[in-house]
């Protein structure tokens, strides 16, 4: 058992804040390893120490293993939490953290390689007899070879980043004509996002549901599952709305899939949090991949099970978390998460960047807001567009949808456009309300940009009234002068 005194966070945004909350409650000091532009963030203002590890470009900061290690050591940290994305699933980072004498909050490098690497995972799952989707997961990365493989499996085919998640570097090939361009694009995106251009091909299931199981291995390697989440609402394979539990699993499927998820992770001695992702079509489930980290949508599991996955991760890594033999987890009620993206839903979802002028969350019972930016912060184009997550809990799924509707309507974000109007349409769509949506829900019902919102008579009168009042120049200038500093001004200075 090792006591963690000071934990460094190799991440940014809302997940950095989530980790800080867990550390505060556990009495652990926090260090933020951040890029220069992320001095404008809520996490920066919350931590005990902040160390600038490089410029905005992720390859030179958040993806730079050496810079993260040196930053953590300089701050006297004894553990590193990688959050999700960036270096969280890079076993070389795990090895570097351990070599530097610190604790990595996550699985061992060995377990990460065994199930986090998609090639190894599929080979291992096959030996265990788990159902897999047909595909090509080899090392031959020539575009012509991949094209031939795609034709052999027949279109539609998915191209995915070997090292990735979150939909980056993932493309759908529907015919030979545009396949070459898309494979190359996927390889470039994979390189940019994960530092590794390797891609895989996979037969595309066209009416599947995305169901994933949250599993957790305690300090002794005893793995239990914390039930499932459904994340079928995806756009370009990027999740938008997630919920726990799934509205469409039978008890029998739940039992079988949960057992498969535990078997796979237990067999590699997995410790900490992992998510085993499946596709479910016609009552058949197929293993998709294992994410060897905390998941963006972990809050919905926390809400229905009454657990704290981040605290459990930290305690497990320090050897202090063991399931009691009689511990049984019962889900209670229903939870939904909506991801708030900085984008313009009325213009096909193009990214929206700029100064956040105001941000106001409608707090209330069963409402949870995870966010990384506050008024005065600048949303840049360097990083993922997700600026916040809204999570609700209620007694039934229908009530949770009603609550989410109200919360979305009452959430105020000024300065950048967000997908909130789009989220409202999604969760009120009859297919979502019924719970029968598949991973093609968005392309089927939301292919077109949303129509511009209309003002009613009273709202128009108000708008006319307000637009007559001249903008106050003082509220405009402060940010651009004060916020953007030249690179490395704050490098290595602890604050």
């Amino acid at each position: 058992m090792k006591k963690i005194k000071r934990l460094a966070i190799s991440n940014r945004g809302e997940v950095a804040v989530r980790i800080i909350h867990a550390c505060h409650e556990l009495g652990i000091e926090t260090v933020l390893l951040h890029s220069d532009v992320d001095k404008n963030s809520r996490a920066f203002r919350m931590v005990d120490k902040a160390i600038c590890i490089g410029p905005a470009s992720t390859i030179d900061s958040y993806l730079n293993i050496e810079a993260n290690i040196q930053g953590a050591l300089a701050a006297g940290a004894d553990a590193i939490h990688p959050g999700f994305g960036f270096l969280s699933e890079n076993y070389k980072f795990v090895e570097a953290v351990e070599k530097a004498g610190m604790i990595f909050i996550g699985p061992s490098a060995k377990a990460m390689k065994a199930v986090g690497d998609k090639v190894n995972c599929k080979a291992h799952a096959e030996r265990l007899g788990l159902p897999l989707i047909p595909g090509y997961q080899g090392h031959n990365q020539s575009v012509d070879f991949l094209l031939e493989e795609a034709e052999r499996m027949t279109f539609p085919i998915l191209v995915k980043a070997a090292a990735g998640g979150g939909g980056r570097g993932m493309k759908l090939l529907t015919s030979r004509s545009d396949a070459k361009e898309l494979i190359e694009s996927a390889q470039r995106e994979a390189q940019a996002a994960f530092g590794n251009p390797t891609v895989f091909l996979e037969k595309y299931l066209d009416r599947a549901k995305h169901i994933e199981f949250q599993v957790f291995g305690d300090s002794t390697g005893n793995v239990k599952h914390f039930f499932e989440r459904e994340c079928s609402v995806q756009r370009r394979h990027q999740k938008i709305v997630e919920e726990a539990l799934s509205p469409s699993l039978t008890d029998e499927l739940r039992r079988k899939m949960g057992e498969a998820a535990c078997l796979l992770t237990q067999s590699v001695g997995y410790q900490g949090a992992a998510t085993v992702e499946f596709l479910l079509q016609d009552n058949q489930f197929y293993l998709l991949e294992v994410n060897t980290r905390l998941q963006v949508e972990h809050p919905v599991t926390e809400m229905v099970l009454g657990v704290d996955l981040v605290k459990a991760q930290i305690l497990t890594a320090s050897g202090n978390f063991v399931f009691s033999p009689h511990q049984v987890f019962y889900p209670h009620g229903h939870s939904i998460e909506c991801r708030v993206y900085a984008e313009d839903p009325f213009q096909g979802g193009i990214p929206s960047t700029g100064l956040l002028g105001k941000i106001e969350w409608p707090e209330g019972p069963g409402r949870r807001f995870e966010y990384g930016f506050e008024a005065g912060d600048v949303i840049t184009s360097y990083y993922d567009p997700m600026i916040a997550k809204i999570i609700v809990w209620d007694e039934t799924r229908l009530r949770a949808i009603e609550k989410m509707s109200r919360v979305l309507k009452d959430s105020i974000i000024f300065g950048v456009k967000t997908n909130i109007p789009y989220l409202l349409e999604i969760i009120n769509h009859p297919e979502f309300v019924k719970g029968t949506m598949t991973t093609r829900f968005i392309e089927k019902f939301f292919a077109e940009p949303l129509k511009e919102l209309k003002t009613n008579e009273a709202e128009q009168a108000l708008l006319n009234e307000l637009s007559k009042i001249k903008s106050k120049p003082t509220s405009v200038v402060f940010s651009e002068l004060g916020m953007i500093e030249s690179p490395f001004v704050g490098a290595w200075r602890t604050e």
Partner: protein
Amino acid sequence: MRQIFSYKSQKISYVSEWIQGTLWLHVGGKTFTFESSQVAKKSRKGHIGLAHNKIIAPMPGKITKVLVVEGQVVEKGQAVVVMEAMKMEYTLKTELAGPVEKVKIIVGSQVSLGDILVQINQEPK
């Protein structure tokens, strides 16, 4: 702060703020914007994406691929530039056929919203 607007005996609760020349208004569960200054007009609909004979950056970001050279004749719908913003790739296509007159960016260029990337000459009819 929430404010009250009375309209024909209706009580309407709203929040509003001017931010960099744009009025933001939250009312009735919806957020509206109203732009007044010249700066804000640059980003208005119609000025971005495909305007006339120019390929214009629809958002700030980095150029990852330039698919045409000056003098090359492009077809309607042809991919011209690939850019990356917020870790996603976007392919910009031309709505106009004709020879490429000017390529103003190279791979790696950081561009701002509204920047002209490529200019195309309309094909003589």
